[in-house]
């Protein structure tokens, strides 16, 4: 969230996050090389460039799995939010390590010969699996993602395009698996790497299925509820005021409409879209801090009554008309244009909620 673009908006958490990444990557690569030197002393010493190729390749794969796990993990538990907060830095770091792996391969396997080094690596003989090309394609996708990871591209490409482009990470992940399984692990008598990468793929897949199933079930439950309660005027009874904790929200899904987050603050309710203008984060899983709805992903803030970011920020999101009848909450499912002021719906708190 910024009023102008800066390369990185450093804060203490980002510095710690990046320092941790740097230490972990360096520690893994150096540790891998040292262990190899200990367990394979001369004359069985593995060539240093090949050790670095292996260390960087393995490190990149481990980082890629972590990146893919963080997303669904953060949907399952808010305690994973610190990992998600600066995930783009982890992504760029991962790309850098993968690029070093690729450059070493091109330099040592493709260099010193009669062909262009890059072509020599990509020019697989006819009839054989081009596993190097799988890795190259994946690297191109990761490079595209790393290059467009900054908010500048998010704002200029638009959230939908940006998100679609970055969903290509799953295609790239499949290419990486093919690169590894049809390449170095092919016909390898050592099953350990295959077991490890299978565990990684299983964890990634399970977490995505679990998260997706949870979302689908929640949408289905909300659909069923709203279909029963929809009144003739078009307003939809979405929940009771007692369903919403103070300074928190209830996310509701109305049929044929996007999700709406109904926030409770100071004995009044406001309804806004559940989608953050930044990266599409789930605003309804956030909280009101300093009078503003705060996105759980990157902390973007919006005033609940108008959907506008506090000055000097300019982001706006859609709001919804809302009213309370008795203790039931009704919203008009047609969104107002982003930034439109709507009157919060007041209600009488129960005596035990007076501290709110």
């Amino acid at each position, binding site marked *: 969230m910024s009023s102008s673009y800066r390369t990185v908006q450093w804060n203490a958490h980002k510095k710690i996050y990046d320092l941790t990444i740097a230490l972990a990557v360096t520690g893994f690569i150096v540790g891998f090389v040292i262990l190899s030197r200990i367990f394979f002393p001369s004359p069985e010493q593995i060539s240093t460039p090949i050790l670095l190729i292996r260390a960087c390749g393995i490190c990149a794969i481990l980082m890629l799995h972590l990146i893919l796990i963080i997303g669904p993990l953060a949907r399952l538990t808010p305690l994973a939010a*610190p990992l998600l907060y600066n995930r783009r830095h982890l992504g760029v770091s991962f790309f850098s390590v993968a690029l070093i792996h690729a450059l070493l391969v091109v330099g*040592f396997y493709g260099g010193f010969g009669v*062909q262009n080094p890059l072509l020599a690596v990509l020019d697989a003989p006819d009839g*054989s699996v081009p596993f190097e090309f799988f890795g190259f394609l994946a690297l191109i996708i990761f490079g595209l993602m790393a290059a467009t990871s900054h908010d500048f591209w998010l704002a200029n490409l638009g959230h939908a395009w940006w998100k679609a482009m970055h969903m290509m990470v799953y295609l790239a992940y499949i290419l990486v698996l093919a690169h590894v399984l049809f390449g170095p692990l092919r016909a390898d008598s050592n099953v*350990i790497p295959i077991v490890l990468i299978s565990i990684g793929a299983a964890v990634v897949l399970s977490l995505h299925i679990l998260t997706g199933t949870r979302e689908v079930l929640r949408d289905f439950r909300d659909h069923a509820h709203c279909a029963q309660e929809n009144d003739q005027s078009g307003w939809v009874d979405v929940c009771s005021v007692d369903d919403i904790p103070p300074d*928190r929200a209830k996310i509701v899904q109305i049929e044929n409409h996007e999700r709406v987050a109904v926030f409770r603050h100071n004995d009044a309710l406001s309804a806004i879209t559940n989608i953050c203008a930044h990266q599409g984060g789930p605003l309804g899983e956030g909280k009101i801090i*300093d009078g503003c709805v705060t996105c759980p992903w990157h902390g973007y803030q919006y005033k609940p009554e108008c959907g506008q970011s506090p000055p000097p920020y300019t982001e706006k999101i859609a709001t919804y008309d809302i009213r309370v009848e008795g203790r039931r909450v009704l919203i008009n499912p047609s969104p107002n244009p982003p930034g439109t002021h709507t009157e919060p719906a007041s209600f009488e708190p129960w005596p035990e909620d007076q501290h709110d």
Partner: protein
Amino acid sequence: MTDSQASGPNNTNRSDPLYVGYMPAPDEHRRAVKRTLILLAAWLSFCAFTLVLTMPSPGEGVWENSNERVWEGFLTNDPYPMLLTPEETLLVVSMGKHGAHDQIDEFANSHVSLRGYELRRQGRRMIEMVPDSITPLGEAPSPQPTLSMLDIEPIDFTGEIIDGKCYLGAMKPGNGFAHRACAVLCLRGGLPAMFAEDDASPDEPLPLLIVDGSTQVPEHVMQYIATRVQMKARRASVGTLPVLIVDSSTIERANDFFGNPKTIVIEQSED
């Protein structure tokens, strides 16, 4: 959100914490991050240890690339650039991934001295020749290298077609599928194809491969480089150098991705 707005006094509700990156982290999140980091460090260490411990040995190839030496002997280009000394037959290659044919042409079939670096493995030695280091030594007893056939009928071999220079020590490991691009590039550049037979004893010298009558591997055979293959070949020798003479139509992949035997018919190219 700028750091100036990071005071976050209202985010300290201990019963309902929310992590916001530019605000002080709630205690629950701090503890969760610490636990995650410990788990990650343990997982990274486990992966590093396990993967290093289970890596296959690259073999005992040696490349003395900082110890320049001088050899004397009879230089020949047939069937491959070689230096025949009274003791042994040494393959001669160039720097990088290049054969030495062009450099040797002018001095072929003569007694010479040359400078270079030794590569050796499994009793087989090779010279990586320093450019322009050949010196003619004039008349001397010249052993005429002849190809002596040891087998009348071809026999079965199983193993990997490798590029001799990497396998002898220039790259470690210089075999395996990850090394394929390098091996193919080396063979295309004229380095010698050799055959690392399964279950060969460490002292058994690696044989030079002659495919379809040439030490230059045909392009249609490149798909079998760096994989286990079965083939029928006849054994021969030049001096102390063992040679395998193979018809490319007999080469087949020894196993597929899952380790099962699989036969692939080679389509002979027009050239």
